[in-house]
């Protein structure tokens, strides 16, 4: 896992006099499940917007999937996928329509979209749902489809925001299996979550506090270092020192 897909050096992002990201440096590798944690307001969203080409850094070097975060934001957007719990699919479109829409947005050819559609429906055993509205799907199925759509164009990096919040325990397990499967194909999973159980599944995690990264290591080593039995304990110890 030495193939770097995200490299950030001395990233600073200011909004007026407020420093949202204060000199961040870290690297993320191909096929890695990377947990990006922090309390509300720590500055995570600002970083993710920069890593997805939606916002330009104030200073520092940022490279995502081989592209520069100042001058190549459009190329960055083509090489990433995004999924969050709250919104990912259009509820008033059918399963098939969502897949075609996203395929088109990602600039995939019609024949490739057709191919992926058939593949995906078969893989998810979704054939009977092809023409169903998203709003009629049970939450578990919706979430599986949302993830499949986020990786439809085989991006180098997928951003996942609290991916398994609110789903039942069986669906949650199946979801992590598909994340492992995706990672084993060399795709990087960049996970943000408030759910510390989800952090335990990550290969490495970083914890942000007040615009700075205050910890970055494997969950196991962080637990040892902070003499804690869970990532939750580590987080509570360091995320907001009193």
């Amino acid at each position, binding site marked *: 896992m030495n193939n770097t897909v995200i490299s950030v050096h001395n990233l600073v992002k200011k909004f007026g006099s407020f420093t949202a990201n204060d000199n961040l440096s870290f690297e993320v590798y191909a096929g890695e499940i990377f947990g990006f944690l922090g309390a509300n307001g720590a500055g995570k969203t600002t970083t993710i917007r920069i890593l997805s080409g939606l916002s330009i850094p104030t200073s520092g070097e940022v490279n995502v999937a081989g592209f520069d975060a100042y001058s190549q934001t459009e190329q960055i957007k083509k090489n990433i996928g995004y999924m969050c719990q709250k919104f990912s699919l259009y509820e008033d479109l059918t399963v098939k329509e969502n897949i075609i829409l996203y395929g088109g947005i990602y600039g995939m050819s019609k024949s490739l979209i057709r191919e992926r559609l058939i593949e995906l429906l078969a893989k998810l055993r979704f054939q009977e749902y092809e023409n169903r509205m998203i709003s009629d799907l049970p939450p578990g199925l919706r979430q599986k489809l949302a993830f499949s759509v986020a990786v439809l164009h085989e991006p180098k990096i997928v951003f996942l925001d609290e991916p398994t919040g609110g789903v039942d*325990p*069986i669906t949650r397990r199946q979801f992590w299996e598909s994340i492992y499967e995706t990672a084993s194909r060399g795709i990087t999973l960049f996970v943000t979550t408030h759910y510390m*159980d989800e952090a335990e599944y990550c290969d490495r995690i970083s914890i942000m506090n007040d615009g700075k990264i205050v910890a970055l290591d494997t969950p*196991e080593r962080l637990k040892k270092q902070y003499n804690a039995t869970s990532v*939750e304990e580590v987080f509570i110890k360091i995320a907001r020192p009193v």
Partner: protein
Amino acid sequence: MLKAVESSGISKKFGPTIALDNISFSVNESEIFGFIGPDGAGKTTLFRIITTLLLPDEGEMSVLGMDSTTDYKELRKNIGYMPGRFSLYQDLSVEENLNFFATVFGTTVEENYELISDIYSHIEPFKKRLAGKLSGGMKQKLALSCALIHKPRLLILDEPTTGVDAVSRSEFWDMLGKLRKYNITIIVSTPYMDEAIRCDRVALIQNGEILSIDTPQNIKAGFSRKLFTVKSAEKYKLIKTLRKNPEILTAYPFGDSIHVTLNNNTLDNSLYEYLVREGIGDAVIMEAEAGIEDRFLELMEKDNGITNKA
């Protein structure tokens, strides 16, 4: 023991969708009772029935000794309700929101200040700020203050910790614990299994049905098999390899390990030897204590008739 809520045979349908299917439970006075289950399990529908905002199709619900369908006017004075979606007026300030809720219930902030002082003191420095401009953790504290300001006997909290960071969640549960001394009964829902241990008793809920009601300790103890954790650097290969072995009953990813149960329920060297034969030389296998989520999975499997390799 006095009951704050007694429910028998509650059912509710929305068109063809069965939201609640024959739900029976009781909540003791002054206890913290949790409903744990995923989105769509029926938690919010049930809370809307308890708070008299929705009528059940069938069944009976007694709340604080009153009938929730007929005594709703009296009941509403005694219930504090914090709905899942942000319930405050975004364009009123912190202070204005609190005063508004106090006035609606015919009281004043001063009269019941003691009850909320612990919670409200965290946000009081920002009392002139609009509620819409507060952070997630602060909104949650203000919403709790507003739900408490009329000194209710029963507090109903619908997913109060969803979307809130781990530090604020932990503080929130500490605050609920402190409310015990005022003899307020608290019913709370959450999709986070790890919050179950903060409750006196919990109901596991799924697809409109209650799978189990007990203390968190008894729910964990209800796990019927021996549980083992298996770790390896190559997690995906490990799961696939474990699933191929006919000795394995279930294998699920759980954080940094795979939770495994065995058909004959006894661990010997054969599993380790099998993994080595399949090219996983670094496996570490240990017996472990089941958690709430393990038990929830087991109950779901029974419900779905899944016995092997989900």
